[in-house]
C-alpha cells in the first residue's frame, strides 16, 4: 500500500492578506516532510469559487512548487475538470507536460467533471453534458501526449493538425485516474483502463464489492491510453497522535469541520435535477459516510484518526479489501496547528508506514 497527501487548500475566514499564503506555505512544508518520510504522492484538486472549503484553482502551480522542494514524491495533477468551459484539452496536455518535465517525470493525472452548481454555473457550463465532455477529453489526452502531430474533431472541441509541445517526460505518458464519487464511476474508469481515484470512504464491505467489480471489468477494458492503470486509491483523514483519545478528538474535529465547510456549497443535485448527477457528489457523501448520523461504527473505524495502532488496523482493513493507495487530508482550515500536523505525519511515518509495503529509503 502506498500513501499520499490530498489537498483542497481550505482557508478560514477572516481572509487576511497573509492567510492564503500561510495555507500554501504550510502545505508545502507538509509535502516536503512527506517526501522525506517516504510518502508516495501528493494530490491537489482543481476547485473554483468554493469559499473557505478550497482555494485551489491552479493545482499545477502548487504542484510545481511541490516538485521544486521535493525529490521523489509524485505529484497528482487533479482533479482536472474535463469540461471545456473550465479547461481546454490542449492546455491540459501542455500544462501536464510542463509539470512532468519540471518534476522529472513524477506526474499523475486525475480527471473529473465537477460536482457543484457553484462551480459549473460559475463557468456557465451545462451539468447535463459534463460526463460526455469528460469522456471525450480522457480519450484525447493520451494521444495528444504520444502523437507526433495531432488533430481532432469532436462534440466539445476540435483542432487542426498540430504538434503539441512540450512532450511529457514520462514514456509513454503519465498514469491517468478518474475521480470517483458516484457509485458506478469506478466502472467508467475500469472500462477505459484508468485508475480509480476514490474520493469517498464508503463502508468496507461496499468498497470491497466495488473494487472487485472494478478489477474484473478492467481486465476486459479497452484502454484510452498506452497502458492500463489498474489501481484503486481512496481518500481519508489522517491525524496520528500517541494519545489515542486526543488523536481521535482532534481528528474528528478536523473531519467534522471539513464536512461542515463542504456542505455550505451547492451540489449540482441540490439545484439542478439531472441524471448526469445521480448522487450528491463528494461533499455530502463525505459528511454522511464519515461523520453523519447514519455513519456506522464500521465507517468510523475506517478513518485514520487516533493512535498508530488504530490507524494501522484501519489501513490493513483497507488493504484487505483491495485498496492500493490512500491519500490523506491532514488539516482543514488550519484548525490544527502546523507543528501538530507535522508531528502527526512524523509519527505516522515512524509507527505506521513500516507496517506496509510503501516506498522505503
Amino acid at each position: 500500500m502506498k500513501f499520499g497527501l490530498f489537498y483542497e487548500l481550505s482557508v478560514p475566514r477572516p481572509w487576511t492578506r497573509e492567510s492564503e499564503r500561510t495555507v500554501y506555505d504550510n502545505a508545502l512544508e507538509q509535502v516536503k516532510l512527506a517526501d522525506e518520510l517516504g510518502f508516495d504522492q501528493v494530490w491537489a484538486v482543481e476547485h473554483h469559487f468554493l469559499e473557505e472549503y478550497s482555494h485551489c484553482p491552479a493545482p499545477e502551480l502548487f504542484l510545481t512548487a511541490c516538485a521544486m522542494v521535493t525529490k521523489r514524491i509524485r505529484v497528482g495533477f487533479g482533479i482536472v475538470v474535463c469540461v471545456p468551459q473550465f479547461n481546454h484539452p490542449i492546455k491540459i496536455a501542455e500544462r501536464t507536460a510542463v509539470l512532468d518535465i519540471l518534476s522529472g517525470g513524477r506526474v499523475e493525472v486525475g480527471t473529473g467533471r465537477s460536482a457543484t452548481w457553484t462551480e459549473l454555473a460559475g463557468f456557465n457550463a451545462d451539468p447535463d453534458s459534463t460526463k460526455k465532455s469528460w469522456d471525450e477529453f480522457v480519450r484525447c489526452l493520451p494521444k495528444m501526449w504520444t502523437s507526433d502531430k495531432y488533430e481532432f474533431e469532436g462534440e466539445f472541441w476540435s483542432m487542426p493538425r498540430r504538434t503539441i509541445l512540450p512532450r511529457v517526460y514520462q514514456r509513454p505518458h503519465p498514469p491517468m485516474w478518474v475521480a470517483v464519487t458516484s457509485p458506478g464511476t469506478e466502472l467508467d474508469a475500469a472500462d477505459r483502463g484508468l485508475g480509480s481515484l476514490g474520493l469517498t470512504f464508503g463502508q468496507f464491505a461496499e468498497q470491497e464489492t466495488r473494487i472487485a467489480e472494478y478489477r474484473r471489468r478492467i481486465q476486459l477494458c479497452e484502454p484510452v491510453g498506452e497502458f492500463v492503470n489498474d489501481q484503486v486509491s481512496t481518500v481519508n483523514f489522517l491525524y496520528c497522535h500517541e494519545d489515542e483519545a486526543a488523536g481521535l478528538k482532534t481528528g474528528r474535529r478536523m473531519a467534522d469541520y471539513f464536512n461542515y465547510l463542504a456542505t455550505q456549497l451547492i451540489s449540482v443535485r441540490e439545484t439542478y435535477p439531472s441524471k448526469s448527477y445521480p448522487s450528491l457528489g463528494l461533499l455530502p457523501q463525505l459528511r454522511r459516510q464519515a461523520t453523519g448520523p447514519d455513519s456506522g461504527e464500521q465507517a468510523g473505524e475506517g478513518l485514520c484518526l487516533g493512535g498508530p495502532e488504530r490507524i494501522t488496523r484501519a489501513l490493513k482493513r483497507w488493504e484487505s479489501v483491495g485498496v492500493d493507495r490512500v491519500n490523506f487530508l491532514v488539516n482543514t482550515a488550519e484548525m490544527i496547528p502546523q507543528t501538530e500536523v507535522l508531528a502527526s505525519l512524523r509519527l505516522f511515518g515512524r509507527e505506521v508506514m513500516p507496517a506496509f509495503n510503501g516506498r522505503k529509503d
Partner: protein
Amino acid sequence: MPLFGELEIDAVAPALPQLRDLDTEAWEIPKAEIVQVAYEVADGTRTLLPRALHPAIPEYVTFVVTRYPESPVGPFDLAQLRLMARAGVHPRGYVLGAVASTDAAVAALRERWGYPVVRGEVAFRRYHDRVASTVRRGGETILDIAVVDPEVIAGGDLQYIHAVTLARVDGAAQLVQVDPHYTVHRAARGRAQVGRFAAAAWNAAAVRLTTPISASASTCDTDLPRIRFVMDPQIPVVSGTKKVR
C-alpha cells in the same frame, strides 16, 4: 467559519405566526402538484436570514408552488418564497413569505407549521410548452413563474429541500423544520422563468434575482408532517436544535 445570517429577530417578531403547539398532526396529501423555480440572487440577503443559519454559496432562492388537491381543510394552493440556506450541515429553505388560496389553509398553515402565509390567489396552468403559476394579491400580480420546455426526468433525480419557518412557539421565536416526504409519480425539468416578482410582497425587499438555475414540475404524494425539530434562531443549530420527537 462560514458566514451566518444577520436577521434582527426583534424587528420581525411582532408579525411572526403563532404556533398553537408542537403536537401538529401530519396531513397526508396524495397527488400534489409542485412547481419549483430556483434562481440565484444578488448578495445582501443575509439580513433576511436568522443568525442560526448559513447562506448558501452562492445565495439563491426557490419559488415553490404546490397544489394540494385534498386536505383536512379542503383543496388549496400554496406559494412560497424560500431563501436557501444551511442549518449546520443540512440544506434548508427558510420561508420568507407565502400565499395560500383559502382562509382555512392560511389559518392552519400559520398555527400548525408556522408559515408566514397570507391569503391570495394562486393559479396553476399547464401549457404545451410550459407549466406556469401566477400569484395575485390585492389586485396585483406578485409572482409569475414558469417551467419552460419541460422534459420528463426520473422522479429520483428530484431533490426537494426541507423548509424551515420562523414562528412564535410558547412565546419565543423558534425555527420550525417542515420536512415532508415525497413519492414522485411524474417529474419534468425545464428552464426557469420569472416574469414578475414583487419582492416586497414576499417580505423580501432585499432579494434581487440574478441568474436562473433550474425549474421543475412534479406530481407526487406528500404530506405536511409532524414537527420533529425546532431551533433557536439566534444561535448556531449545532447547539440550538431541540428534537420534538
